[in-house]
Protein backbone atom coordinates (compact mmCIF):
# COMPACT_ATOMS: atom_id res chain seq x y z
CA UNK A 1 0.00 0.00 0.00
CA UNK A 2 1.21 3.48 -0.73
CA UNK A 3 1.38 6.53 1.45
CA UNK A 4 -1.86 8.12 0.23
CA UNK A 5 -4.09 5.16 0.96
CA UNK A 6 -2.53 4.96 4.43
CA UNK A 7 -3.45 8.51 5.19
CA UNK A 8 -6.97 7.99 3.83
CA UNK A 9 -7.36 5.01 6.15
CA UNK A 10 -5.96 7.13 8.93
CA UNK A 11 -8.52 9.90 8.40
CA UNK A 12 -11.29 7.35 8.05
CA UNK A 13 -10.34 5.76 11.39
CA UNK A 14 -10.15 9.11 13.13
CA UNK A 15 -13.53 10.19 11.76
CA UNK A 16 -15.11 6.97 13.00
CA UNK A 17 -13.75 7.68 16.47
CA UNK A 18 -15.01 11.26 16.37
CA UNK A 19 -18.48 10.04 15.42
CA UNK A 20 -18.39 7.43 18.20
CA UNK A 21 -17.40 10.05 20.78
CA UNK A 22 -19.60 12.96 19.72
CA UNK A 23 -22.74 11.32 18.38
CA UNK A 24 -24.15 10.48 21.85
CA UNK A 25 -23.40 13.98 23.15
CA UNK A 26 -24.96 15.69 20.13
CA UNK A 27 -27.94 13.38 20.26
CA UNK A 28 -28.58 14.33 23.88
CA UNK A 29 -28.43 18.04 23.01
CA UNK A 30 -30.68 17.65 19.96
CA UNK A 31 -33.22 15.52 21.81
CA UNK A 32 -33.50 18.09 24.56
CA UNK A 33 -34.78 20.72 22.09
CA UNK A 34 -37.03 18.40 20.08
CA UNK A 35 -40.82 18.86 20.48
CA UNK A 36 -42.25 16.08 22.70
CA UNK A 37 -44.52 14.78 19.93
CA UNK A 38 -41.51 14.08 17.71
CA UNK A 39 -39.41 12.77 20.57
CA UNK A 40 -41.85 9.97 21.22
CA UNK A 41 -43.06 9.30 17.68
CA UNK A 42 -40.81 6.27 17.25
CA UNK A 43 -39.54 7.30 13.82
CA UNK A 44 -36.08 8.47 12.91
CA UNK A 45 -35.63 12.17 12.54
CA UNK A 46 -32.06 13.37 12.61
CA UNK A 47 -33.04 16.98 13.06
CA UNK A 48 -36.29 18.11 14.68
CA UNK A 49 -38.77 20.04 12.51
CA UNK A 50 -38.51 22.97 14.89
CA UNK A 51 -36.48 23.74 17.99
CA UNK A 52 -38.30 24.15 21.24
CA UNK A 53 -37.40 24.95 24.82
CA UNK A 54 -40.59 23.33 26.04
CA UNK A 55 -38.77 20.64 28.01
CA UNK A 56 -36.71 23.28 29.77
CA UNK A 57 -39.78 25.26 30.79
CA UNK A 58 -41.45 22.11 32.05
CA UNK A 59 -38.33 21.32 34.01
CA UNK A 60 -38.25 24.61 35.87
CA UNK A 61 -41.88 24.11 36.80
CA UNK A 62 -41.67 20.46 37.86
CA UNK A 63 -38.37 20.22 39.72
CA UNK A 64 -36.28 22.34 42.11
CA UNK A 65 -33.68 22.83 39.42
CA UNK A 66 -32.47 26.22 40.63
CA UNK A 67 -31.90 25.20 44.23
CA UNK A 68 -30.13 22.01 43.13
CA UNK A 69 -27.97 24.01 40.77
CA UNK A 70 -26.91 26.29 43.60
CA UNK A 71 -26.38 23.35 45.94
CA UNK A 72 -24.04 21.80 43.39
CA UNK A 73 -22.31 25.11 42.86
CA UNK A 74 -21.82 25.57 46.60
CA UNK A 75 -20.52 22.07 47.26
CA UNK A 76 -18.21 22.03 44.23
CA UNK A 77 -16.98 25.56 44.92
CA UNK A 78 -16.13 24.88 48.55
CA UNK A 79 -14.58 21.49 47.79
CA UNK A 80 -12.28 22.84 45.11
CA UNK A 81 -11.41 26.02 47.04
CA UNK A 82 -10.57 24.09 50.18
CA UNK A 83 -8.60 21.46 48.28
CA UNK A 84 -6.69 24.08 46.35
CA UNK A 85 -5.73 25.97 49.50
CA UNK A 86 -4.58 22.85 51.33
CA UNK A 87 -2.74 21.49 48.32
CA UNK A 88 -0.80 24.74 47.74
CA UNK A 89 0.73 24.41 51.20
CA UNK A 90 1.23 20.67 50.87
CA UNK A 91 2.94 20.91 47.48
CA UNK A 92 5.17 23.74 48.65
CA UNK A 93 6.05 21.72 51.74
CA UNK A 94 6.90 18.65 49.71
CA UNK A 95 8.97 20.63 47.22
CA UNK A 96 10.91 23.00 49.43
CA UNK A 97 11.63 21.06 52.58
CA UNK A 98 13.24 17.77 53.41
CA UNK A 99 11.81 15.94 56.35
CA UNK A 100 11.58 12.54 57.89
CA UNK A 101 9.23 10.11 56.10
CA UNK A 102 8.78 12.34 53.05
CA UNK A 103 8.71 9.42 50.61
CA UNK A 104 6.20 7.42 52.63
CA UNK A 105 3.93 10.44 53.01
CA UNK A 106 4.08 11.09 49.29
CA UNK A 107 3.07 7.49 48.58
CA UNK A 108 0.12 7.99 50.93
CA UNK A 109 -1.01 10.87 48.70
CA UNK A 110 -0.72 8.70 45.60
CA UNK A 111 -2.52 5.88 47.39
CA UNK A 112 -5.37 8.27 48.19
CA UNK A 113 -5.42 9.43 44.58
CA UNK A 114 -5.90 5.88 43.32
CA UNK A 115 -8.15 4.82 46.19
CA UNK A 116 -11.72 4.05 45.06
CA UNK A 117 -14.20 5.78 47.35
CA UNK A 118 -16.80 3.05 47.09
CA UNK A 119 -14.73 0.90 49.46
CA UNK A 120 -15.42 3.24 52.38
CA UNK A 121 -19.01 4.31 51.81
CA UNK A 122 -20.20 2.27 54.80
CA UNK A 123 -17.78 3.67 57.43
CA UNK A 124 -18.06 7.14 55.91
CA UNK A 125 -21.80 7.04 56.48
CA UNK A 126 -21.15 6.07 60.11
CA UNK A 127 -18.55 8.80 60.48
CA UNK A 128 -20.86 11.49 59.12
CA UNK A 129 -23.62 10.16 61.36
CA UNK A 130 -21.49 10.50 64.47
CA UNK A 131 -20.18 13.94 63.42
CA UNK A 132 -23.83 14.95 62.80
CA UNK A 133 -22.95 15.81 59.22
CA UNK A 134 -25.49 13.62 57.46
CA UNK A 135 -27.72 15.68 55.17
CA UNK A 136 -25.40 18.66 55.32
CA UNK A 137 -23.34 20.20 52.56
CA UNK A 138 -20.30 20.44 54.86
CA UNK A 139 -20.35 16.66 55.18
CA UNK A 140 -20.52 16.31 51.42
CA UNK A 141 -17.65 18.78 50.94
CA UNK A 142 -15.53 16.70 53.32
CA UNK A 143 -16.45 13.49 51.51
CA UNK A 144 -15.67 15.02 48.12
CA UNK A 145 -12.29 16.16 49.44
CA UNK A 146 -11.34 12.50 49.73
CA UNK A 147 -10.91 12.33 45.97
CA UNK A 148 -10.47 16.00 44.96
CA UNK A 149 -7.67 16.74 47.42
CA UNK A 150 -5.24 13.97 46.36
CA UNK A 151 -5.75 14.86 42.71
CA UNK A 152 -5.20 18.55 43.47
CA UNK A 153 -1.92 17.77 45.25
CA UNK A 154 -0.89 15.47 42.44
CA UNK A 155 -1.67 17.93 39.63
CA UNK A 156 -0.36 20.97 41.43
CA UNK A 157 2.94 19.30 42.22
CA UNK A 158 3.45 18.74 38.50
CA UNK A 159 2.91 22.49 38.00
CA UNK A 160 5.32 23.35 40.81
CA UNK A 161 7.93 21.12 39.23
CA UNK A 162 7.99 23.38 36.18
CA UNK A 163 9.19 26.32 38.31
CA UNK A 164 13.00 26.25 38.34
CA UNK A 165 14.43 25.75 41.84
CA UNK A 166 17.12 28.36 41.02
CA UNK A 167 14.62 31.23 41.22
CA UNK A 168 13.78 30.28 44.80
CA UNK A 169 17.47 29.83 45.62
CA UNK A 170 18.27 33.26 44.22
CA UNK A 171 15.57 34.81 46.40
CA UNK A 172 16.90 32.95 49.44
CA UNK A 173 20.41 34.35 48.91
CA UNK A 174 18.89 37.81 48.58
CA UNK A 175 17.52 37.39 52.08
CA UNK A 176 14.00 36.15 51.42
CA UNK A 177 12.67 33.61 53.93
CA UNK A 178 11.51 30.19 52.80
CA UNK A 179 7.88 31.07 53.42
CA UNK A 180 8.56 34.34 51.61
CA UNK A 181 9.46 32.43 48.48
CA UNK A 182 6.06 30.76 48.63
CA UNK A 183 4.20 34.07 48.54
CA UNK A 184 6.63 36.03 46.37
CA UNK A 185 7.67 33.42 43.83
CA UNK A 186 5.82 30.12 43.82
CA UNK A 187 2.27 31.46 44.09
CA UNK A 188 2.59 34.26 41.49
CA UNK A 189 4.29 31.90 39.05
CA UNK A 190 1.69 29.15 39.36
CA UNK A 191 -1.53 31.15 39.03
CA UNK A 192 -2.52 29.35 35.78
CA UNK A 193 -1.85 26.09 37.59
CA UNK A 194 -4.18 27.10 40.43
CA UNK A 195 -6.92 27.92 37.96
CA UNK A 196 -6.58 24.55 36.26
CA UNK A 197 -6.44 22.57 39.48
CA UNK A 198 -9.27 24.54 41.04
CA UNK A 199 -11.54 24.16 38.03
CA UNK A 200 -10.74 20.48 37.66
CA UNK A 201 -11.50 19.89 41.32
CA UNK A 202 -14.73 21.76 40.73
CA UNK A 203 -15.68 19.44 37.84
CA UNK A 204 -14.89 16.31 39.86
CA UNK A 205 -17.01 17.43 42.77
CA UNK A 206 -19.79 18.72 40.51
CA UNK A 207 -19.99 15.33 38.74
CA UNK A 208 -19.99 13.13 41.82
CA UNK A 209 -23.11 11.15 42.51
CA UNK A 210 -21.89 8.39 44.82
CA UNK A 211 -21.32 10.38 48.01
CA UNK A 212 -24.31 12.66 47.52
CA UNK A 213 -26.49 9.58 47.10
CA UNK A 214 -25.35 8.19 50.43
CA UNK A 215 -25.10 11.33 52.52
CA UNK A 216 -28.08 13.39 51.38
CA UNK A 217 -31.69 12.31 51.57
CA UNK A 218 -33.57 15.58 51.90
CA UNK A 219 -34.54 16.87 48.46
CA UNK A 220 -33.89 20.50 49.42
CA UNK A 221 -30.21 19.53 49.79
CA UNK A 222 -29.98 17.61 46.51
CA UNK A 223 -27.18 18.27 44.07
CA UNK A 224 -27.80 18.03 40.31
CA UNK A 225 -26.70 14.39 39.79
CA UNK A 226 -29.17 13.34 42.50
CA UNK A 227 -31.93 15.32 40.84
CA UNK A 228 -31.21 13.59 37.52
CA UNK A 229 -31.30 10.15 39.08
CA UNK A 230 -34.57 11.03 40.80
CA UNK A 231 -36.30 11.55 37.44
CA UNK A 232 -36.27 7.76 37.03
CA UNK A 233 -39.05 6.31 39.11
CA UNK A 234 -39.83 2.59 39.25
CA UNK A 235 -43.11 3.12 37.43
CA UNK A 236 -42.22 6.01 35.16
CA UNK A 237 -39.27 7.67 33.48
CA UNK A 238 -39.59 11.41 32.92
CA UNK A 239 -37.62 11.57 29.68
CA UNK A 240 -38.09 15.27 29.06
CA UNK A 241 -36.74 16.14 32.52
CA UNK A 242 -33.94 13.61 32.24
CA UNK A 243 -32.64 14.96 28.95
CA UNK A 244 -32.79 18.61 29.93
CA UNK A 245 -31.34 18.00 33.40
CA UNK A 246 -28.46 16.08 31.86
CA UNK A 247 -27.78 18.95 29.48
CA UNK A 248 -27.96 21.50 32.31
CA UNK A 249 -25.50 19.42 34.36
CA UNK A 250 -23.12 18.90 31.44
CA UNK A 251 -23.03 22.49 30.15
CA UNK A 252 -20.92 24.08 32.92
CA UNK A 253 -18.52 21.13 32.66
CA UNK A 254 -18.21 21.59 28.90
CA UNK A 255 -17.62 25.33 29.29
CA UNK A 256 -14.88 24.75 31.89
CA UNK A 257 -13.45 21.94 29.78
CA UNK A 258 -13.10 24.17 26.73
CA UNK A 259 -11.37 26.70 28.95
CA UNK A 260 -8.81 24.46 30.70
CA UNK A 261 -8.51 21.20 28.80
CA UNK A 262 -5.13 22.08 27.28
CA UNK A 263 -3.59 22.58 30.70
CA UNK A 264 -5.42 19.72 32.23
CA UNK A 265 -4.44 17.09 29.68
CA UNK A 266 -0.83 18.30 29.95
CA UNK A 267 -0.84 18.16 33.75
CA UNK A 268 -2.39 14.71 33.81
CA UNK A 269 0.12 13.22 31.41
CA UNK A 270 3.08 14.96 33.03
CA UNK A 271 2.02 13.55 36.39
CA UNK A 272 1.33 10.07 35.10
CA UNK A 273 4.62 9.71 33.28
CA UNK A 274 7.02 11.63 35.45
Amino acid at each position, binding site marked *: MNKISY*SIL*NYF*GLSLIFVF*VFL*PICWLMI*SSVTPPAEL*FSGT*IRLLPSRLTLEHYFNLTKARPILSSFFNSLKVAGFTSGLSLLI*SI*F*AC*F*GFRSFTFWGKKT*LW*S*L*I*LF*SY*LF*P*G*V*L*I*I*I*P*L*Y*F*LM*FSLRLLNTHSGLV*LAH*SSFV*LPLAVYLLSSFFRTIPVEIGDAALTDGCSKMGTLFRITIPLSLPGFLTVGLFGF*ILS*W*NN*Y*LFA*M*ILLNRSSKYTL*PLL*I*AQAIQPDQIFWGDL*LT*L*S*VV*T*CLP*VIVIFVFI*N*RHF*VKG*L*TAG*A*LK
Partner: protein
Amino acid sequence: MLIVPVFLVLGLVIFYPLAMNLRLSLSDADLLRLRQAPQFVGLANYVKTLSDPVFWASLATTLIITVSAVFIQIVLGTATALLIDRQPRRFQFFLASILFLPYVLPTVAIAMMWKWMLNETYGIVNQVFLTSGIIEQPISWLGNPSLAVLSVILIEVWARFPFVMVIVLASLTSIPEQLYEAAKLDGASWRQLILHITLPWLKFVLIIVASIRFLWTFNHLELIWVLTKGGPSKATTTLPILVFTRGFLGYDLSRAAALSFIMLVILMSIVMPRIQKANVV
Protein backbone atom coordinates in the same frame (compact mmCIF):
# COMPACT_ATOMS: atom_id res chain seq x y z
CA MET B 1 3.81 21.94 59.27
CA LEU B 2 2.69 22.81 55.76
CA ILE B 3 1.69 19.26 54.96
CA VAL B 4 -0.30 18.69 58.13
CA PRO B 5 -3.69 19.89 56.81
CA VAL B 6 -3.67 17.55 53.82
CA PHE B 7 -3.04 14.53 56.05
CA LEU B 8 -5.60 15.69 58.59
CA VAL B 9 -8.29 15.72 55.90
CA LEU B 10 -7.17 12.52 54.19
CA GLY B 11 -6.83 10.85 57.57
CA LEU B 12 -10.38 11.80 58.47
CA VAL B 13 -12.03 10.84 55.18
CA ILE B 14 -9.89 7.92 53.95
CA PHE B 15 -7.60 6.34 56.51
CA TYR B 16 -9.81 6.52 59.59
CA PRO B 17 -12.83 5.15 57.65
CA LEU B 18 -10.61 2.34 56.35
CA ALA B 19 -9.77 1.31 59.91
CA MET B 20 -13.37 1.79 60.97
CA ASN B 21 -14.47 -0.43 58.09
CA LEU B 22 -12.43 -3.29 59.47
CA ARG B 23 -13.94 -2.85 62.92
CA LEU B 24 -17.46 -2.62 61.51
CA SER B 25 -16.98 -5.79 59.50
CA LEU B 26 -16.29 -7.69 62.73
CA SER B 27 -19.48 -6.47 64.39
CA ASP B 28 -23.23 -6.57 63.87
CA ALA B 29 -23.97 -2.96 62.91
CA ASP B 30 -27.36 -2.30 61.41
CA LEU B 31 -28.55 0.78 59.56
CA LEU B 32 -31.79 0.78 61.56
CA ARG B 33 -29.99 0.66 64.92
CA LEU B 34 -27.29 3.28 64.34
CA ARG B 35 -27.46 4.66 67.86
CA GLN B 36 -26.71 1.33 69.53
CA ALA B 37 -23.11 0.25 69.95
CA PRO B 38 -22.47 -2.71 67.61
CA GLN B 39 -21.51 -6.04 69.20
CA PHE B 40 -18.32 -7.86 68.29
CA VAL B 41 -19.16 -10.99 66.29
CA GLY B 42 -15.76 -12.16 65.07
CA LEU B 43 -15.45 -13.39 61.52
CA ALA B 44 -19.14 -14.25 61.14
CA ASN B 45 -19.70 -11.64 58.42
CA TYR B 46 -16.77 -12.94 56.41
CA VAL B 47 -17.94 -16.54 56.69
CA LYS B 48 -21.43 -15.51 55.61
CA THR B 49 -20.14 -13.48 52.67
CA LEU B 50 -17.72 -16.08 51.39
CA SER B 51 -20.29 -18.87 51.58
CA ASP B 52 -22.87 -16.80 49.73
CA PRO B 53 -23.34 -17.80 46.06
CA VAL B 54 -24.50 -14.23 45.31
CA PHE B 55 -21.04 -12.97 46.25
CA TRP B 56 -19.28 -15.35 43.86
CA ALA B 57 -21.76 -14.61 41.07
CA SER B 58 -21.22 -10.89 41.39
CA LEU B 59 -17.44 -11.31 41.65
CA ALA B 60 -17.66 -13.11 38.29
CA THR B 61 -19.87 -10.35 36.83
CA THR B 62 -17.47 -7.69 38.08
CA LEU B 63 -14.48 -9.45 36.56
CA ILE B 64 -16.22 -10.00 33.22
CA ILE B 65 -17.30 -6.36 32.94
CA THR B 66 -13.99 -4.97 34.21
CA VAL B 67 -11.66 -7.15 32.17
CA SER B 68 -13.55 -6.69 28.90
CA ALA B 69 -14.09 -2.95 29.38
CA VAL B 70 -10.44 -2.34 30.28
CA PHE B 71 -9.21 -4.51 27.42
CA ILE B 72 -11.32 -2.66 24.84
CA GLN B 73 -10.37 0.71 26.36
CA ILE B 74 -6.70 -0.14 26.02
CA VAL B 75 -7.07 -1.31 22.42
CA LEU B 76 -9.26 1.61 21.34
CA GLY B 77 -7.26 4.18 23.32
CA THR B 78 -3.95 2.97 21.90
CA ALA B 79 -5.35 2.78 18.36
CA THR B 80 -6.68 6.34 18.63
CA ALA B 81 -3.37 7.57 20.01
CA LEU B 82 -1.53 5.89 17.11
CA LEU B 83 -3.86 7.52 14.58
CA ILE B 84 -3.42 10.92 16.20
CA ASP B 85 0.35 10.45 16.38
CA ARG B 86 0.47 10.30 12.58
CA GLN B 87 -1.12 13.73 12.26
CA PRO B 88 0.98 16.91 12.04
CA ARG B 89 2.33 17.71 15.47
CA ARG B 90 0.45 20.96 15.97
CA PHE B 91 -2.90 19.18 15.55
CA GLN B 92 -2.08 16.25 17.80
CA PHE B 93 -2.67 17.98 21.06
CA PHE B 94 -5.78 19.69 19.77
CA LEU B 95 -7.36 16.41 18.59
CA ALA B 96 -6.51 14.60 21.80
CA SER B 97 -7.91 17.28 24.05
CA ILE B 98 -11.20 17.42 22.13
CA LEU B 99 -11.61 13.66 22.27
CA PHE B 100 -10.97 13.82 26.02
CA LEU B 101 -14.43 15.32 26.61
CA PRO B 102 -16.36 12.15 27.61
CA TYR B 103 -13.90 11.57 30.44
CA VAL B 104 -14.96 14.74 32.26
CA LEU B 105 -18.73 14.53 31.78
CA PRO B 106 -20.85 13.63 34.82
CA THR B 107 -21.38 9.85 34.96
CA VAL B 108 -25.06 10.27 35.69
CA ALA B 109 -25.56 12.35 32.55
CA ILE B 110 -23.56 9.79 30.53
CA ALA B 111 -25.78 7.02 31.85
CA MET B 112 -28.89 9.01 30.90
CA MET B 113 -27.70 9.86 27.42
CA TRP B 114 -27.08 6.19 26.70
CA LYS B 115 -30.25 5.05 28.42
CA TRP B 116 -32.10 7.36 26.04
CA MET B 117 -30.26 6.11 22.97
CA LEU B 118 -30.73 2.46 23.93
CA ASN B 119 -34.39 2.85 24.91
CA GLU B 120 -36.49 0.05 23.49
CA THR B 121 -39.28 2.13 21.95
CA TYR B 122 -37.91 5.63 21.37
CA GLY B 123 -34.15 5.03 21.26
CA ILE B 124 -32.24 5.96 18.15
CA VAL B 125 -30.22 2.73 18.17
CA ASN B 126 -33.29 0.55 17.77
CA GLN B 127 -34.86 2.94 15.27
CA VAL B 128 -31.79 2.86 13.05
CA PHE B 129 -31.53 -0.92 13.24
CA LEU B 130 -35.24 -1.39 12.57
CA THR B 131 -35.35 0.97 9.62
CA SER B 132 -32.25 -0.49 8.03
CA GLY B 133 -33.76 -3.95 8.43
CA ILE B 134 -30.98 -5.40 10.58
CA ILE B 135 -33.51 -6.39 13.23
CA GLU B 136 -37.23 -7.02 12.97
CA GLN B 137 -38.27 -6.60 16.60
CA PRO B 138 -37.06 -3.80 18.88
CA ILE B 139 -34.29 -5.02 21.17
CA SER B 140 -34.46 -4.40 24.90
CA TRP B 141 -30.80 -3.45 25.36
CA LEU B 142 -30.96 -2.90 29.10
CA GLY B 143 -33.74 -5.41 29.76
CA ASN B 144 -32.01 -8.55 28.56
CA PRO B 145 -29.35 -9.91 30.97
CA SER B 146 -26.49 -10.50 28.55
CA LEU B 147 -27.25 -7.43 26.43
CA ALA B 148 -27.30 -5.31 29.59
CA VAL B 149 -23.79 -6.50 30.46
CA LEU B 150 -22.71 -5.72 26.91
CA SER B 151 -24.27 -2.24 27.07
CA VAL B 152 -22.53 -1.50 30.38
CA ILE B 153 -19.19 -2.51 28.85
CA LEU B 154 -19.82 -0.35 25.77
CA ILE B 155 -20.67 2.72 27.84
CA GLU B 156 -17.74 2.17 30.18
CA VAL B 157 -15.47 2.06 27.11
CA TRP B 158 -17.01 5.20 25.61
CA ALA B 159 -16.61 7.17 28.81
CA ARG B 160 -13.10 6.11 29.77
CA PHE B 161 -11.01 5.25 26.71
CA PRO B 162 -9.91 8.91 26.36
CA PHE B 163 -7.87 8.49 29.56
CA VAL B 164 -5.87 5.69 27.91
CA MET B 165 -5.59 7.74 24.74
CA VAL B 166 -4.00 10.87 26.26
CA ILE B 167 -1.51 8.94 28.35
CA VAL B 168 -0.48 6.66 25.49
CA LEU B 169 -0.20 9.67 23.18
CA ALA B 170 2.10 11.44 25.62
CA SER B 171 4.27 8.35 25.76
CA LEU B 172 4.26 8.03 21.95
CA THR B 173 5.51 11.56 21.46
CA SER B 174 8.44 10.77 23.75
CA ILE B 175 9.76 8.03 21.42
CA PRO B 176 13.02 9.33 19.94
CA GLU B 177 12.60 9.99 16.21
CA GLN B 178 16.02 8.41 15.55
CA LEU B 179 14.69 4.97 16.47
CA TYR B 180 12.19 5.12 13.63
CA GLU B 181 14.67 6.62 11.20
CA ALA B 182 17.24 3.93 11.87
CA ALA B 183 14.62 1.21 11.40
CA LYS B 184 13.36 2.81 8.20
CA LEU B 185 16.90 2.90 6.82
CA ASP B 186 17.04 -0.82 7.47
CA GLY B 187 13.89 -1.18 5.37
CA ALA B 188 11.33 -1.83 8.13
CA SER B 189 7.66 -1.62 7.12
CA TRP B 190 5.05 0.42 8.97
CA ARG B 191 3.78 -2.73 10.65
CA GLN B 192 7.24 -3.72 11.75
CA LEU B 193 7.81 -0.26 13.20
CA ILE B 194 4.65 -0.58 15.29
CA LEU B 195 5.36 -4.15 16.39
CA HIS B 196 9.06 -3.78 17.18
CA ILE B 197 9.47 -0.18 18.29
CA THR B 198 6.16 1.40 19.30
CA LEU B 199 4.48 -1.39 21.24
CA PRO B 200 7.58 -2.45 23.23
CA TRP B 201 8.09 1.23 24.12
CA LEU B 202 4.48 1.49 25.29
CA LYS B 203 4.43 -1.76 27.25
CA PHE B 204 5.42 -0.11 30.49
CA VAL B 205 2.85 2.67 30.27
CA LEU B 206 0.13 0.27 29.16
CA ILE B 207 0.64 -1.90 32.23
CA ILE B 208 0.22 1.11 34.52
CA VAL B 209 -2.78 2.48 32.66
CA ALA B 210 -4.45 -0.93 32.53
CA SER B 211 -3.91 -1.39 36.28
CA ILE B 212 -5.37 2.01 37.12
CA ARG B 213 -8.34 1.47 34.82
CA PHE B 214 -8.87 -2.00 36.31
CA LEU B 215 -8.90 -0.52 39.80
CA TRP B 216 -11.39 2.22 38.94
CA THR B 217 -13.67 0.16 36.70
CA PHE B 218 -13.84 -2.64 39.26
CA ASN B 219 -15.15 -0.10 41.76
CA HIS B 220 -17.38 1.93 39.51
CA LEU B 221 -20.80 2.00 41.12
CA GLU B 222 -22.44 5.13 39.68
CA LEU B 223 -22.82 4.10 36.04
CA ILE B 224 -24.41 0.70 36.62
CA TRP B 225 -26.56 1.94 39.46
CA VAL B 226 -28.15 4.63 37.30
CA LEU B 227 -28.42 2.42 34.21
CA THR B 228 -29.81 -0.82 35.54
CA LYS B 229 -29.68 -0.81 39.36
CA GLY B 230 -27.85 -4.14 39.01
CA GLY B 231 -30.64 -5.81 37.04
CA PRO B 232 -32.19 -7.36 35.04
CA SER B 233 -32.30 -10.39 37.35
CA LYS B 234 -28.95 -9.39 38.93
CA ALA B 235 -27.11 -9.67 35.60
CA THR B 236 -25.20 -6.44 36.21
CA THR B 237 -24.87 -6.72 39.99
CA THR B 238 -21.19 -6.00 40.46
CA LEU B 239 -19.51 -6.02 43.87
CA PRO B 240 -19.91 -2.25 44.45
CA ILE B 241 -23.63 -2.59 43.67
CA LEU B 242 -23.81 -5.45 46.14
CA VAL B 243 -22.09 -3.37 48.85
CA PHE B 244 -24.54 -0.54 48.29
CA THR B 245 -27.69 -2.67 48.22
CA ARG B 246 -26.60 -4.80 51.21
CA GLY B 247 -25.61 -1.80 53.28
CA PHE B 248 -28.15 0.85 52.49
CA LEU B 249 -31.16 -1.01 51.15
CA GLY B 250 -30.70 -4.22 53.13
CA TYR B 251 -29.62 -2.30 56.26
CA ASP B 252 -26.84 -4.83 56.91
CA LEU B 253 -23.91 -2.43 57.31
CA SER B 254 -21.54 -5.02 58.76
CA ARG B 255 -21.88 -7.51 55.96
CA ALA B 256 -21.43 -4.70 53.47
CA ALA B 257 -18.31 -3.61 55.36
CA ALA B 258 -16.94 -7.17 55.24
CA LEU B 259 -17.64 -7.22 51.52
CA SER B 260 -15.78 -3.92 51.03
CA PHE B 261 -12.84 -5.30 52.94
CA ILE B 262 -12.76 -8.43 50.78
CA MET B 263 -12.79 -6.20 47.69
CA LEU B 264 -9.92 -4.19 49.11
CA VAL B 265 -7.90 -7.37 49.66
CA ILE B 266 -8.64 -8.58 46.11
CA LEU B 267 -7.59 -5.25 44.63
CA MET B 268 -4.49 -4.89 46.78
CA SER B 269 -3.31 -8.33 45.75
CA ILE B 270 -4.03 -7.92 42.02
CA VAL B 271 -3.44 -4.29 41.19
CA MET B 272 -1.11 -2.74 43.74
CA PRO B 273 1.93 -4.97 43.05
CA ARG B 274 1.72 -4.05 39.36
CA ILE B 275 1.43 -0.34 40.00
CA GLN B 276 4.20 -0.48 42.58
CA LYS B 277 6.48 -2.39 40.23
CA ALA B 278 5.97 0.36 37.70
CA ASN B 279 7.35 2.86 40.23
CA VAL B 280 4.36 5.15 40.10
CA VAL B 281 3.69 4.88 43.79
